[in-house]
């Protein structure tokens, strides 16, 4: 009898011990910037304290957004994490290749109303998280692009520093006044459309173009007069200022604007050095200006210029998201953690790190903390986003290549765009089973 009693006690102890053993969630992210990282770590810690039965371990896995090599090999080998930090515009691609678990399904299982959850985020961000009508991710931060300009240069050139160029026509005129040349060499360049965040998307949208028709699942940029015009306009800069001299000017700073990824080592920034007067760039440049610019640096920000006849400015936004990679060991607990991070975690992150939030609730507090970012937050309502397609990375590269063909005079704008469109569309058709 005594023996049985001991056994029962032992069994009870064993069961309670097993129950107390928390589920371990592995979370990979690549935010190596100390400020960003600290905010994430703090949110993770808070989650762990609140949910003793789930313990999240966050691991910093450096890598670039489109080359998720480590993730793929880990998935293939069955050693992947439970939660992964993914560039949002590649969600469709990863989902199509069956590298992600359907997050929506697990959110439903833990009793979350998906439809009302979706409404908490800005539209474009949640749209990027959906592929084939299935929710694969929840949005994390976002960003926006504007025109930065050097006020001192404006004064020197006799321009009003409080009146940045509004239209493309004004912009061209300003650039002419701001550029200084000595012999063959530029001492200062007013502006170059494709430098910084002046990607083919940026100008295509600024000129009122559209890239993709979701209804017919067709790429339409090669037929879009406005996008053709946006490339032809950029070509006028290559012709007027000389593509080789421009490339040389920027390569002298250790950066290349037509190459893909030169300078993982931080280049010297010609804008911050006062040798480039204007540039399209994202809201993250604010932090760099604070850290790296000379003390007497005076700058302003303004919406991206647009052609007169379009009549209004646009911008576009990217950002990150949280997903569950295929084969995660604890998808349900992972979904719970993602839900927490995308809502509470993100609100904290926006305030801590000055990253633009995608959750609507966070915006007022964000603007209050970072008044200089009000322009960006306002622009989010008109912001475009890249079409969520499984060929996103290819489309990006093909557009950049097409632009370079035009800049170097190898193809005219219409041909370059047509070639790129045909190539990407045929890949897309394969995936859509057409």
């Amino acid at each position, binding site marked *: 009898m005594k023996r049985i009693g001991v056994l029962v006690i032992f069994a009870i102890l064993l069961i309670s011990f097993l129950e107390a053993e928390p589920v371990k969630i592995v979370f990979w992210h690549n935010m190596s910037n100390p400020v960003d990282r600290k905010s994430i770590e703090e949110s993770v810690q808070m989650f762990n304290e609140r949910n003793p039965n789930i313990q999240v371990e966050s691991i910093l896995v450096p890598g670039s957004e*489109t*080359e998720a*090599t480590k993730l*793929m090999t880990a*998935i*293939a080998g069955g050693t992947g994490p439970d939660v992964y930090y993914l560039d949002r515009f590649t969600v469709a*691609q990863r989902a199509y*290749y*069956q*590298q992600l678990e359907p997050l929506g399904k697990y959110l439903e299982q833990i009793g979350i109303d998906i439809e009302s959850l979706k409404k908490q985020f800005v539209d474009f961000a949640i749209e990027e998280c959906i592929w084939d009508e299935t929710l694969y991710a929840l949005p994390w931060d976002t960003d926006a692009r504007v025109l930065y300009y050097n006020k001192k240069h404006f004064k020197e050139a006799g321009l009003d520093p409080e009146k940045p160029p509004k239209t493309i026509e004004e912009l061209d005129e300003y650039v002419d006044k701001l550029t200084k040349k000595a012999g*063959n*060499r530029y001492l200062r360049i007013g502006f170059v459309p494709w430098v910084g965040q002046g990607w083919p998307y940026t100008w295509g949208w600024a000129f009122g173009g559209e890239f993709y028709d979701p209804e017919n699942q067709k790429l339409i940029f090669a037929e879009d007069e406005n996008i053709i015009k946006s490339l032809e306009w950029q070509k006028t800069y290559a012709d007027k200022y000389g593509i*080789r001299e421009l*490339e*040389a*000017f*920027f*390569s*002298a700073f*250790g950066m*290349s604007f*037509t*190459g*893909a*990824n*030169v300078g993982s*080592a931080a280049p010297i920034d010609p804008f911050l050095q006062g040798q480039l007067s204007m540039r399209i760039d994202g809201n993250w440049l604010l932090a760099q200006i604070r850290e790296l610019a000379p003390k007497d640096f005076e700058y302003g920000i303004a919406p991206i210029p647009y052609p007169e006849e379009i009549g209004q400015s646009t911008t576009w936004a990217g950002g990150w998201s949280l997903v569950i990679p*295929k084969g995660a060991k604890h998808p349900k607990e992972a979904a719970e953690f993602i839900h927490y991070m995308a809502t509470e975690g993100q609100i904290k992150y926006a305030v801590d790190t000055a990253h633009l939030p995608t959750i609507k609730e966070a915006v007022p507090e964000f603007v209050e903390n970072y008044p200089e970012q009000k322009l960006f937050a306002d622009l989010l309502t008109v912001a475009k986003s890249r079409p969520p397609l499984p*060929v996103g*990375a*290819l489309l990006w*590269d093909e557009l950049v*290549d097409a632009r*370079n*063909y035009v*800049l*170097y005079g*190898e193809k005219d704008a219409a041909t370059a765009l047509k*070639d790129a469109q045909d190539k990407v569309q045929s890949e897309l058709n*394969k995936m859509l089973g057409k």
Partner: protein
Amino acid sequence: MTHRKKRAWIGVLFALPAILGLVILKIYPIIVSGFYSLTEYHITVSPEWVGIENYKNLFSDPLFIKSFSNTMYYLVLLVPLGLVVGICLALLLVKDIKGISFFRSMVYLPSIVPVYAFATVALWFFNPYFGLVNGLLARVGINGPLWVADESWVKFTLVLAAQWGAGPTALLFMASMKDIPRELYEAATLEGANAWQKFWRITFPFISPVTLYYLITSSIQALQFFDMPNIMTGGGPNNASLSLGMYIYRHAFRYTNMGYASAMSWIIFIIALILSFVLFRTSMKWVFYGE
């Protein structure tokens, strides 16, 4: 089991780790990539048979053709230039002068530097405005080119920069020059041969086996040229320096297009095979293995 057989088995046993490594990590992937090159394959989805379509598409892909011709340019320039630089350095290093071991280590030193650091320094070297090279050229009144910023110069710049790594080749040639019996040179001097005749009639035949080795390995390396263009130019400007290796990487890891990437790898593999075959065949005519 005879004694000899037993010893042979022990030998195999010792070599086994290397053999297994070769089979599992090299030969198996080569064969499997041959299979994948005939499929549409995206790693996490099972491959789908498409026959020779990937190969057919390659030849209508302008970027493949561009990167292919870039790679041929690298091959045609890197290999001979490396040979000349290697032999010239070796001829200097083989001399028995005071402090020669210092010079030998100096020549080898750059090869120890990680390629990333070296490529970054090279970028500054060839910086069109502030670079050392154009600075020196300006001193003698030459307006230097824009190097990596210029489409028509970028490949040549990379080939020049790659000579930084000539140290190991030079040491290899030097070692084989040291084995040449001195009497031969003495006899030649007595007969009144000049330096060029001595090099061509004595030195070159003796270093020809090393030359064959160099030609084969460096051709294969040139076909796989990746790290320097990737770090220094990212393939630009306007894809003028994009090598096949970089284009394969783009398809494999950016677009997860493993089938297409495998097909390109096989093209390189076949070219390397043909090159090695031709070199071996012709080597009978010019390689001297001693009497």
